[in-house]
């Protein structure tokens, strides 16, 4: 259990360090070190969990079960690779004078702060704390969104702040209702602990839980970016620094979804109407289709991919909503591969934007001829996110389709439609970007593409064969959520 504390302490130390240390040139590298150490700690934690099953800390403050442990490792991993990417990227931004050293310092501090919030959301056993951490994540990133201080960035940050704040407030109301429901069965002090709630799930008052779930869904759904609560997402993604977009897409959305799923598990345990599932399916499908449609008319490359994030989160929500072992398995897998692929894409997108000196799609052309690694990275990443095998996204989408076909066949055409539209929307923009002659004055930039290679490699590996230990995690988590093993 010490591992969990380490996981939380390391980023905390990071915050302190960056806050007090005066700004220096090698902050990027130090940031990488912090994340690397943290990754090691999470791996240690993971090993513990895989060996001994669910861990509950002595004071019941933290719970680590197969469901969140792999999310923790994923968070640490993406955090590390993104920090690797962000070191040269932010340095470049600093050189071309878009950022001052002070802002850089702020950036690294908040990076660690964000990581801390993420770990807290994942590890805590207490709904209240989870809420606090989630709000904390917003507060940590909101200043990063407005890091460039351009009017657009400030506007984006303001919207992000207000919308997520209001949204998350609903989640708090839900939490209070839940607490209220829990207090009906006595034991006030730790009535907000997952562990306790799961034990007495059957005793809770179903009506209260349903209403509470609505508030939770609205609240955390705002953070997931479910249509029509998604409006902050494209702005925040497109205006903040690219590494931020990478972690927002790759981690924050996942963790919000994690919170919703946790609540769904609780509600399913209590009520026997599948109301939570239907709600999630509805929102998921809506976001999936609308996100897919949004892709078509984008002019800003980062907006493009943030909409693709909305679409994929929609698909995951949909899959979780379907319930059942197959869909759940697919959703878990999709969470993993999506955050890996999407953060990889944002890395390449960032470099592409630096090469062209703008994020406007029609200005970025002929990447393969300009800087082949970036071009191919972007192209292959897009192929992967569009769900082409042998990449992992295909596997999960395949399973989702089959699960839909199995449970709700009349929805399958919609899902199919969405995938097709999304694919077309992505490629009609990406193809002219990567292909074609290189325009004048486009020069390669200094880029570290290891994150991309590693991520896409992993996604490829997941697509070809899911390694044993990971499969073990997944199936354990699936059992935890849906109550049965996949097939």
């Amino acid at each position, binding site marked *: 259990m010490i591992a969990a504390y380490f996981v939380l302490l390391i980023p905390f130390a990071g915050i302190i360090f960056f806050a007090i240390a005066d700004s220096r040139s090698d902050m990027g590298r130090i940031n990488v070190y912090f994340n690397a150490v943290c990754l090691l700690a999470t791996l240690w934690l993971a090993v513990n969990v895989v060996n001994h099953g669910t861990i509950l800390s002595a004071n019941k403050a933290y719970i680590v079960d197969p469901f969140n442990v792999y999310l923790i490792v994923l968070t640490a991993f993406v955090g590390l690779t993104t920090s690797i990417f962000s070191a040269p990227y932010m340095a470049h931004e600093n050189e071309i004078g878009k950022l001052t050293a002070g802002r850089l310092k702020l950036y690294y501090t908040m990076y660690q702060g964000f990581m801390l919030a993420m770990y807290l959301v994942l590890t805590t056993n207490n709904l209240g704390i989870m809420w606090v951490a989630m709000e904390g994540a917003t507060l940590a990133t909101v200043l990063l969104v407005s890091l460039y201080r351009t009017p657009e960035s400030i506007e984006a940050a303001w919207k992000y702040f207000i919308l997520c704040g209001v949204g998350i407030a609903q989640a708090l109301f839900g939490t209070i209702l839940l607490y209220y429901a829990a207090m009906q069965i006595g034991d006030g002090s730790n009535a907000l602990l997952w562990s306790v709630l799961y034990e007495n799930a059957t005793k809770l008052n179903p009506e209260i839980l349903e209403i509470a779930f609505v508030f939770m869904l*609205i609240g955390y759904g705002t953070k997931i970016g479910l249509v029509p*609560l998604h409006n902050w997402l494209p702005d925040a993604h497109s205006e903040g620094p690219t590494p931020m977009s990478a972690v927002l897409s790759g981690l924050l959305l996942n963790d919000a979804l994690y919170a919703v799923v946790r609540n769904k598990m609780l509600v399913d345990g209590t009520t026997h109407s599948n109301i939570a599932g239907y709600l999630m399916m509805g929102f998921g499908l809506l976001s999936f289709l609308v996100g897919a*449609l949004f892709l078509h008319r984008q002019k800003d490359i980062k907006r493009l991919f943030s909409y693709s994030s909305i679409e994929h989160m929609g698909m995951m929500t949909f899959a979780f909503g379907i319930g059942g072992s197959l869909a759940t398995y697919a959703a878990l897998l999709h969470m993993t591969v999506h955050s890996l692929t999407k953060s990889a894409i944002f890395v390449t997108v960032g470099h592409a934007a630096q090469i062209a000196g703008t994020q406007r799609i029609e200005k970025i052309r002929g990447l393969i001829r300009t800087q082949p690694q970036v071009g191919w990275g972007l192209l292959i990443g897009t192929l992967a996110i569009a769900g082409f095998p042998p990449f992992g996204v295909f596997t999960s989408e395949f399973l989702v389709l089959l699960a839909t076909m199995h449970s709700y066949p009349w929805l*399958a055409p919609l899902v199919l439609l969405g995938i097709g539209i999304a694919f077309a929307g992505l490629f009609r923009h990406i193809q002219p970007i990567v292909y074609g002659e290189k325009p004048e004055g486009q020069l390669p930039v200094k880029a570290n593409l290891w994150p991309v290679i590693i991520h896409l490699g992993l996604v490829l590996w997941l697509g070809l064969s899911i390694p044993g230990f990971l499969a073990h995690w997944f199936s354990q988590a699936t059992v935890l959520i849906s109550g049965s093993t996949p097939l």
Partner: protein
Amino acid sequence: MILFSAYLAVLLSFASGLLALTVNQRHLLQTLCNYSFSTLFKNQSQHKAWIDKNLELQRFPAFLRQGVFILLGLSGLFAVIAGLTVLISKQVITDQLPLGLPWLPWHIRFDCLSGFFFLIIGIGVFAVSLYGPGYVRTYKEHQHPFASLGLFTGLFVAGMLLVLLSDDAFMFMIAWELMSVASYFLVAFQHENSANRRAAFLYLLMAEVGALAIILAFGVLASFSDGFTFNALRESKLSVTWSSIAFVLALLGFGMKAGIAPIHVWLPEAHPVAPSHISALMSGVMLKVAVYGLIRFCFDLLSEVQWQWGVVLLILGSLSALAGILYAMMQPNLKRLLAYSSVENIGIIFMVLGLTMIFMATGHPQLGVLGLLAALFHAFNHALFKNLLFLGAGILQHQTHELNIDMMGGLIKKMPQTSLLFLVGCMSISSLPLFNGFVSEWLAFQTALQVDVLDNGVLRSLIPVAAAALALTAALAAACFVKVFGLIFLGQPRSHHSEKAHEVQNKFMLAGPALLAGLCFFIGIFPSTIIHLINNTSEQLLGQTLPNVNALSWLWLAPVSAQQASYSPPLVLIAALIAAGICYSYFRRNPLTTVRTAPTWDCGFGGLTPRMQYTSSSFTMPFRRIFAKVWIVDEQISKETKGAMNQEVASVHYQLQVHDHSWPHIYTPIAQGVNDLARQVGRIQTGNIRTYLGYSFVTLILLLWLIS
């Protein structure tokens, strides 16, 4: 052993792809081989010298190209071996690979059907690998990196082979999409001109949609059974409705890949822009993989076929056969023309498959076998001659830098061998006797003529019409390829390039086509060799063999019964030789009558110039008049007059464009619709935060109201 060679084929194609990646790692390779020679085997200094020589800067690229294509050729060879052995030994080999989902490893199944298509692919790949090195030499490394070309070619071939091997839905889809994506990169290989990009996008989009349809088709089966392995899917008990839904989805998916009208539009866009040896593979081989998919799905996975499906296939097939050849006829671009003729041939195959279904469903399995025989045989033949023609087109492009057949002419004197090979291709594709194309067409007719056994009046009157459509198709194909050969190789050169053209130096570029041409002729004379193999296939797939197997000898071809129909190509060949020999010798008897050459007579008009010759559009003018409704023809004649009162005509400018009906009627509306929808949806992103708050507010209210 058989499976081993099959795996070897896959691995070798992968290896060739990976080897191509090392095109920029010359130094790495050098250090590697130095190290290996210094440590592993010290004594073979002559090998070391040889390798070092090849790793020198100027020799390395050629060396690498050779290596890559040699590996590819070996892969093709092993594919042929595997296919033949399994076809002869009539085995079914299953295996599992430790890949895929944790509860679903990749299932492998290698049976006669897969073996037959292995044979097709192997031959195609082998020919291409002979042809390739000479062809790709002209690409500039910095513009068109050989690494990507070689890599994706390898992946492409591997994907196709894996599709044939796969025995569960998941692996099937992965292999299928690998095939699609790899070929997408190959289509986009020369991405500097926008037509290629557009083609590639269209191709990938339609491949994706098709793949999704196939997934759903599998999904339908899977939801009525447990698990995704084909064995499980075979067991699935479906109602007729559901199985029909599955069939339609499968038809959509596989038909899109095979290029059945009206979902063929990617094909004439994508095939011409790829490098020629790739177009050969795509058109000659990949389409067959789609046919394989359909056969596997309908005859193997679905428990029993319905005759209505057969009717659907019959109609669709006839339509795309006619449309394909008619559109082909109008194309001035050689490779587009060939692509459209692929649509035609696929149409014929689907048509005969439809007949097979009808006969199977109405309880005449043996005639069904006859149909399957015709279909598979035609698939095989099409693979041969379409490969041949595309490779020939590649040679022409290579030598004349032209694909527009109105710019060629007179090449028969400049490039004798090429012209001969191309002639063979044209004769087989327009199904003339003594060549393989004719045999499969003959079988198709024989199948159609068995209609008498049916009781259903609709079918009895429908099938003969289809047969007549087939006849019309064949005749039009002959016309089309007369045009092709005549305009390209005969007459006088129409452009500077074709005047300067000369035969290819690199003999291997001719060896590939020569191999295929030889096969075309050999199969045309001894069709029984293939028919026996197909017979084994159908025995395994349908549990039935031809009605009259014992009449199958090397000499006679009498699939139903010797009374009903028989055809003996060898005898015909002999007779033809005798006849030609007699009249030749008779007319050569008199030494005085040796040929005297003189200027062209041309009815006494003088001053014959190449511009007076018939062009593609003028040759096909009568057809354009007769079948005017088939195309969207836009024909413009602009006259420039000068002189007093603009009396005399200074110049006349004629331009003709022929468009596909399916664009304005199917595809443009869809694209438009999606765009409009996207624009509508864009409205919700107003940019006003209060609106956004309003959204979440309303959502909250709605949900709360919904709950209570």
